[in-house]
C-alpha cells in the first residue's frame, strides 16, 4: 500500500503545509501544544506500553520454562510451580490487555492470546478435539498454529490444561497432553516477542506525523492512547462484572467470569485498574493527569486518580467465592464496584473535554 500512495503523499505534504497556516486556531487559550502531546505519547509508549509488553514476554518465557519443567517429571511440586507461574503470566497479560491498537491487533494476536468470553465453549471443544487426535502423533509446529482455532492458542487454553480437573486427568494417559501444553506456551512466548519487536519499529510513527502518515498529528496519536485509557472501564464493568454477576444473586453465574478456573477473576480486574491508573497518572513527565492539570481541570484529575485507588481498595475486600458461589455480601460489594466504575468511566469521558480530545464519532456510535 505504501508505494501506491507515494504520489499522493507528496500532494498531501504540500496540502498539509498550507493547513498549518490557514486553519483557524481553536478558541481555548489553555489548549495543550502539539509538543506537549508528543511528550505524552512518548511517555505512554516508552514508560507504559513497551515496558508492559516486555514484562509480558519475560513472564511468557518463564511460563515456557516452568511448564516444560513440570512436563519433565510431572511432580506435584512442579505442577504447583507451573500453576503459580501461570497466574503471574496471566497478570502480566491483564496488565496490558487494554492496549487495543498497534501490533497486538495484527494477525488476530489479541484474540489468539486471549479468546474470551468464550460463550460457546470453543476452547473446551477444540482442546478435546486436539487431544483426541493424539494417536496420529501430531506436530505442534507453526503450520499447526496457523490453522488452529484462536481458542487454543492463548492463556485460556493453558489455564484449562493446568486447572481443569477433567482435562488434566488425561495428563498421563494422553501422549499429546504435555506436547500440546508446552507448544501453546511456546507459541504465546513467540507471539508476545513479535509484539515487542514490532512496537520498537512502531516508535517511528511517533516521530513522523503527516496527513497520510499513521497519525496526522501528535494529538491524533494521543487520541488512540487515550481511547485505551477510557474505553476499557466500561468493558471491564460490563464483561468482567455485570455479565457473570447477573441482576440478582440467584442469577449469578460466576463461571461466566474471566479466569475463574485459576480463581483470578477479581485479581484480573485489580491488575487492569492498577495498570490503567499507571497510564493515567503513573508515567512521568506528561501523564494524562498532568495534562489535565495543565488544562485547568486539576480537580477532575485528582478525583479520577482517587477513584482508581478507591475501586482497587474495594476489590481487595471481596472474598473469594466458595464453590463458585458468592453470598449476598459479595454480590453487594461487586454491584457497588460496578457503580464506581460507571462514575470513573463518566469522569474519564468528561476529562476528554478539557483536553479537547475527541475519541471518535462514527466509530464509537454509529447506526
Amino acid at each position, binding site marked *: 500500500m505504501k508505494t501506491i500512495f507515494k504520489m499522493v503523499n507528496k500532494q498531501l505534504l504540500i496540502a498539509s503545509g498550507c493547513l498549518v497556516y490557514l486553519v483557524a486556531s481553536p478558541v481555548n487559550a489553555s489548549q495543550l501544544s502539539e509538543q506537549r502531546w508528543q511528550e505524552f505519547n512518548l511517555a505512554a509508549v516508552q514508560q507504559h506500553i513497551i515496558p508492559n509488553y516486555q514484562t509480558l514476554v519475560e513472564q511468557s518465557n518463564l511460563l515456557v520454562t516452568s511448564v516444560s519443567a513440570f512436563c519433565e517429571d510431572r511432580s506435584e511440586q512442579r505442577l504447583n510451580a507451573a500453576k503459580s507461574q501461570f497466574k503471574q503470566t496471566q497478570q502480566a497479560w491483564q496488565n496490558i490487555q487494554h492496549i487495543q491498537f498497534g501490533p497486538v491487533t495484527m494477525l488476530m494476536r489479541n484474540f489468539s492470546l486471549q479468546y474470551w468470553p468464550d460463550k460457546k465453549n470453543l476452547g473446551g471443544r477444540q482442546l478435546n478435539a486436539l487431544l483426541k487426535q493424539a494417536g496420529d502423533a501430531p506436530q505442534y509446529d507453526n503450520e499447526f498454529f496457523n490453522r488452529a482455532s484462536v481458542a487454543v492458542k492463548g492463556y485460556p487454553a493453558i489455564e484449562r490444561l493446568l486447572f481443569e480437573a477433567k482435562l488434566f486427568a488425561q495428563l498421563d494417559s494422553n501422549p499429546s497432553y504435555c506436547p500440546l501444553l508446552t507448544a501453546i506456551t511456546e507459541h504465546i512466548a513467540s507471539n508476545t516477542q513479535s509484539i515487542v519487536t514490532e512496537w520498537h519499529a512502531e516508535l517511528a510513527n511517533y516521530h513522523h506525523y503527516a496527513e*497520510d502518515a499513521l497519525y496526522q498529528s501528535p494529538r491524533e496519536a494521543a487520541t488512540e492512547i487515550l481511547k485505551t485509557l477510557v474505553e476499557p472501564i466500561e468493558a471491564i464493568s460490563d464483561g468482567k462484572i455485570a455479565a457473570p454477576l447477573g441482576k440478582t444473586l440467584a442469577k449469578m453465574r460466576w463461571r461466566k467470569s474471566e479466569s475463574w478456573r485459576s480463581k483470578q477473576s477479581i485479581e484480573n480486574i485489580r491488575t487492569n485498574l492498577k495498570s490503567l491508573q499507571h497510564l493515567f497518572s503513573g508515567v512521568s513527565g506528561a501523564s494524562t493527569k498532568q495534562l489535565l492539570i495543565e488544562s485547568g481541570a486539576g480537580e477532575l484529575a485528582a478525583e479520577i486518580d482517587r477513584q482508581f485507588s478507591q475501586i482497587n481498595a474495594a476489590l481487595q475486600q471481596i472474598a473469594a467465592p466458595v464453590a463458585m458461589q458468592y453470598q449476598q455480601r459479595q454480590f453487594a460489594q461487586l454491584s457497588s464496584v460496578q457503580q464506581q466504575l460507571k462514575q470513573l468511566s463518566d469522569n474519564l469521558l468528561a476529562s476528554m473535554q478539557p483536553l479537547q480530545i475527541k475519541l471518535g464519532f462514527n466509530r464509537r456510535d454509529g447506526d
Partner: protein
Amino acid sequence: MNNKSINVPRRQFSGYLGCLLLSAALPSVSMANSPSSYASASVDDRGQHWLIVFDQLGNQQVKYPLPSRAHQVLKHPTQPWLLVVARRPGQYLLVIDLNTGALVQRITASTGQHFCGHMQISADGKLLYTTENITLNSAGLIVVRDFSEQLQTLQQFSSGGIGPHQLKLCDADKTLVVANGGIHTKNRQKLNLQQMHSNLSYINLATSEITEQVMLDTEYAQLSIRHIAVDDSSRVLIAMQYQGERTAVVPLVALHQRGEPLSFLAIPEKDFFQLQQYCGSACFDRTGSVVAVSAPKGDSILFWDLANNNRYLHKIKVKDGCGITAGASEGEFIVSSGRGRVYQINPRQASKTLLLKNTAIQWDNHLAAVG
C-alpha cells in the same frame, strides 16, 4: 426546539467554517460536471448538531442548528430543499430551504412511532418515504407522505421486518427496497440479538406488497443489513454489521439483483479483522462500475471493481470515515470523516486528495451530494 434558522450569507463563509481551499492546487477536482455542493449532519466542539451544506471549495452555504443528532440528509429532486431526518429513535424531520437557509417545514413521527434515520423522495418530487418503527416492538413501517399536502401521511405499510434502516427507490420508482436490520431496540439498546433476523425486502409501491425478500442463512443470522445503495440497473449494494462472536469471519458486504441469491463481496482476512465486523455507508460510483463501503471502526473505506469480476481493489485509510457519495467521474468518491475531513478518493488510481479540513467539526454518518 429551535426553529430559527441561521442564515449565513454565502460570501461570509470561508473564514467561518475554517474549511480550506485546497482544490485550487489540485486540478483533478475542478471537473465541469461535478456536483458542486455536499451536505451532511455534523456536531461541533460544544456538542451542538448542525446541518451543513458546503461546496467543494470549502465555502459553507447553509448551517442550520438541529435539535439532536441527525442521520441522513437528502436533496429534494425538484425543489431547492434539503431534508434532514433525526437518527433513530428519531422525532423530527426538517425541510430546509437551500437558498435562504430557512426552515420550510418540520414534521414529527406519529404517536407511538419514530423515524429510523433514512428517507427517499420520488423522482417527480411528490412523495416522501421514510422508514419508521413502532416504538413498542420495533415493527418496521414505510410511511408515505405527500409534499403537496404539507407532508401529511398518505399511507403506511409494513417494511417487511423489524428495525428497518435505509431504503431506496428502484425500477423507475415502482419498487422500494428496504434494509430491515432485524434488531429490536429500546432507546438504542439491542434486545433480541439471539433471535434477530435481518432481511432485504422489495416492496411494490402500487400494491404495498412485498414481492421479494432476501434472508441470510442461519449461520449469518446475526448479520444486520443496514445500509444499501442502488444503481441504474437496480443492483443493490448491501453493507452489514455483525452482532455475534467477535472472532467470527462473516461476509459484511453483498450485491443483490432481483431473482438471484446474494453475492458476497470478498474482503481479505488481513483487512477483515481491522473492521470490527462493522460497515457504515454503501455507495456506487457514477457509472456503477466501482463500489465503496465505509468501515469507520476500521478507519477504512473498502472498494470493489464490479467491472472486473467484483474484484476487491483495496482499502484506503480514512480515520473515522463514514459518509460516502459518488464523485464526478468514474471510480471517484467523496468521503467525509468524524475528524472533520472531506476527501476525494479514486481507488483505481489509488489517489486520495484532501478537499476540506475543519477539525472543529465531526461529520456524521452520511454525506449527500446536493447539486
